[in-house]
């Protein structure tokens, strides 16, 4: 089976630091794939390589391939902005644009791409907020500041903003680590619904979260991919002893 995203001998560096080592991974379409592993193992770097966000940091370097729908996003002549439109990202800390209201936050990407038609902007705002399960909570005060709503709502606003530009893949870098259990449950429900239309890759420190929502789980350690497989297999009967030690908390 060819994945939506395929990494081939992917290596990533921060200067001399070799952060990702020869990772071959095939991320299936319309599924949730969780990436787990201890701090500093390269989880976030790995997903940042999937939409060419890694290279925005000075001194970084990537070798190998990241193939999305059959095309290597690192091939010469590829427009990294177009890659990022196709592969959206949501970060650990909710980061709505603080000077914009809710509506403007959602349509910011479209406006940046030159869209000026109010009808299209209105429809996109509503559709994206509905997709992000936030519409009912904010529809009566779309002009309120993007940072005036709760943390969980802000994170869903960021998801709505990412969805507004109609990506095919959504990368989520610990999207719930700053949220309480109720807000976390809402995001998890949302991700579960979104996988019908999108391919989702989530980095999480919360193993129960990976077990709850992911169809596939990848375990990384010291920049290497130790094990990748169906989540049920990883959490019921992992192949590698290192995986077993990590998920049962007997690490170190």
């Amino acid at each position, binding site marked *: 089976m060819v994945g939506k995203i395929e990494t081939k001998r992917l290596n990533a560096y921060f200067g001399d630091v070799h952060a990702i080592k020869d990772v071959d991974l095939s991320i299936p379409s319309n599924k949730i794939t969780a990436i787990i592993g201890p701090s500093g193992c390269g989880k976030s770097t790995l997903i940042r390589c999937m939409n060419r966000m890694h290279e925005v940091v000075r001194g970084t370097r990537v070798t190998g391939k990241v193939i999305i729908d059959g095309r290597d996003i690192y091939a010469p002549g590829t427009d990294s902005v177009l890659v990022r439109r196709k592969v959206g990202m949501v970060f650990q800390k909710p980061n709505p644009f603080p000077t914009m209201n809710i509506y403007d936050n959602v349509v910011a990407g479209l406006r940046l791409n030159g869209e000026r038609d109010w009808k299209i902007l209105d429809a996109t705002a509503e559709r994206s907020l509905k997709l992000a399960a936030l519409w009912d909570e904010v529809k009566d005060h779309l002009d309120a500041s993007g940072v005036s709503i709760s943390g969980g709502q802000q994170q869903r606003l960021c998801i709505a903003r990412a969805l507004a530009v109609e990506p095919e893949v959504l990368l989520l870098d610990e999207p719930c680590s700053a949220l309480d259990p109720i807000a976390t449950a809402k995001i998890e429900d949302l991700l579960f619904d979104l996988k019908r239309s999108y391919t989702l890759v989530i980095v999480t420190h919360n193993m129960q979260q990976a077990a709850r929502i992911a169809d596939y789980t990848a375990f990384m350690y010291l920049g290497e991919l130790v094990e990748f497989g169906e989540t049920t297999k990883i959490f019921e009967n992992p192949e590698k002893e290192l995986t*077993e030690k990590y*998920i049962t908390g007997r690490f170190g």
Partner: protein
Amino acid sequence: MSPRKAYQTELEELDRLVDLMAGKAQNAIALAVKSFEKLDPELADEVIKIDSEMYQLNIKIEKKCLEVIALQSPVAKDLRTVGTYLKVITDFDRIGRYARDIAEVTHRSGDKAHFKPLVSIPHIADMASRMVEMSVKAFIDRDVGLTKDVFELEDKVDSLYDEIFREVITYMMEDSKKIGIGINYMLVARYLERIADHACNISERTIYMVTGERFVKE
């Protein structure tokens, strides 16, 4: 030192309780068979006492397993272990219950002598006891290799049970006074055959606990 000390302590306590229950199951069946062979009511009383203790252990272990699941969220081998514990305690409990049933037959038999020197019943009892002993050892030592012998013995137990059934019917047909004790033999043989089945269950669950692979005896 391994992290998650509290979790580790909980699991070790659970291991200890389950091993204790396994040992009691083994002891119960050995004593029950002896009580029936010798028609010894005191031994039978001892079996009934062990069965009650096992019942209490069953409740205690189940409660502890649920606590570990709720509070420690075990995964991988730990999860398989706790899941297996929840299942095997029912097998142990049933073995204890059948041992008690045999002990009750001993009580009911009173001083009615066996109608012939017992051969087949001690034989099936010996096999069922060995199966329990081996499956308990496989379970406690996490030794999948031992389970093979358990499965082999089970086929023999089944054949012997059929044999006993036919033999006892013949005796009862010959002499209606033997119907009472004949039924007791049938009951005891049936209980032992069921005990052997539970020993097989324990072995199957041990394989899953250790390897993560499902094994079901044909």
